[in-house]
C-alpha cells in the first residue's frame, strides 16, 4: 500500500515537472512572439517613414511650385506694366538724354 502511494507521488512529481517544462516553453514562445511583433512594428515603421517622406515632400513641393508660379506671374505682369509705361514715356526719356548729351541741361 505504501509502495503504491510513493509510486503515485513520484508519478505526480514527474507530471508536475513536465507541466512546468511545458509552461516554460510556452513562456519562451510568448516572449519570442512579442519580439517578432516588435520586429514587425519596426519594419512597418520604416515603411511608413518612406511613405511619409514622399507625402511630405510632395506637399511642400506642390506648395513651393504654386508660390513660385504666383511670384513669377506677378513679376511678369509687373515687367509688362513697366514696358508699357516705358513705351509711353520713351519720347520724353529720349529728350532727357538728348538735352544732357547735347549740353542743353
Amino acid at each position, binding site marked *: 500500500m505504501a509502495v503504491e*502511494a510513493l509510486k*503515485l*507521488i513520484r508519478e*505526480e*512529481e514527474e507530471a*508536475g*515537472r513536465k*507541466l*512546468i517544462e511545458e*509552461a516554460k516553453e*510556452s*513562456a519562451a514562445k*510568448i*516572449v519570442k*512572439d*512579442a*519580439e517578432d*511583433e*516588435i520586429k514587425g*512594428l*519596426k519594419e512597418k*515603421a520604416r515603411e*511608413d*517613414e518612406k511613405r*511619409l*517622406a514622399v507625402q*511630405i*515632400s510632395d*506637399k*511642400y*513641393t506642390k*506648395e*513651393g511650385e504654386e*508660390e*513660385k508660379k504666383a*511670384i*513669377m506671374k*506677378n*513679376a511678369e505682369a*509687373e*515687367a509688362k506694366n*513697366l*514696358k508699357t*509705361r*516705358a513705351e*509711353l*514715356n*520713351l519720347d*520724353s*526719356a*529720349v529728350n*532727357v*538724354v*538728348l*538735352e*544732357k*548729351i*547735347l*549740353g*542743353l541741361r
Partner: protein
Amino acid sequence: MGATEIVEKIKNEANAECDEIISEAKENAKKQLEVAREEVELQKKNFVEAEERKEIEEKERIVRATRLNARKLGWDTEEEMIGKVLDESMKRLKEVKRESFKGNSYSNILAGLIKDAALSMVEGSSASSELEVILSEEDASYVDKSMLKGLSDEISAGSVNVRLSLSGEGERIKSAGGVIVRTKDGKIEVNNTFEQRMIRFSTSLKEDVVKVLFKDKE
C-alpha cells in the same frame, strides 16, 4: 496527510507555478510591446517633424530664389528699356542735325559744347590759350571760322584771352557727333563727343531717364 492529498498538493503547486510562469511571460511581453510601440510612435513623430522642417526649408529656398528671379526680371526689363532709350537717342541725333532740337540748331549746339569745353580748360588760368577744335567729318560743315571767332571773343570778354581754331591738316574724329577741344600742344583735352558725354554722365543720366521712363502718366 494521505497519499491522495499529497498528490493533489503536488498537482496544485505545479499548476500554480505554471500559471505564474505564463503570467510573467505575458506581462513581460506586454511591457516590451508597449515600450516598442511608444518608441515607434515617438520616432515617427520626430521623423515627421524633421522631414517637415527639411521640406519647409527647401520650399523657402525655392521661394527666395524665385523672388530674386522676379526682381531680376524687373531689373532686366528696366535695363532693356533704358538701353532702348539710349539707342533711340543716338538714332535721333541724325534728326537733330537735320532739323534742330527744341529750337536749337545743331551749329548752336556744337558752339555750346565748344564753349563749355574751352571754359573748363581755361578756368582759373590767366594766361592766353590757343585751343584747337576737332570734329567728325559729318559735323565739319556745322562749324566755321567765324563761329569760332565769335566764341573766342565771347570767352575772351572775361579775364582770359582765348583763341579757338579748327585743328589743322583735316584732322577728324570718329564719332556720332560733338567735339574735342584741346590745347595746341595736345597736353590738355576735353572730349565733348556724344559717346564720351554719355559715358561721363551715365550715372546721373540713368537716374534721370528712370525717373521719366517709368513715371505713371497722369
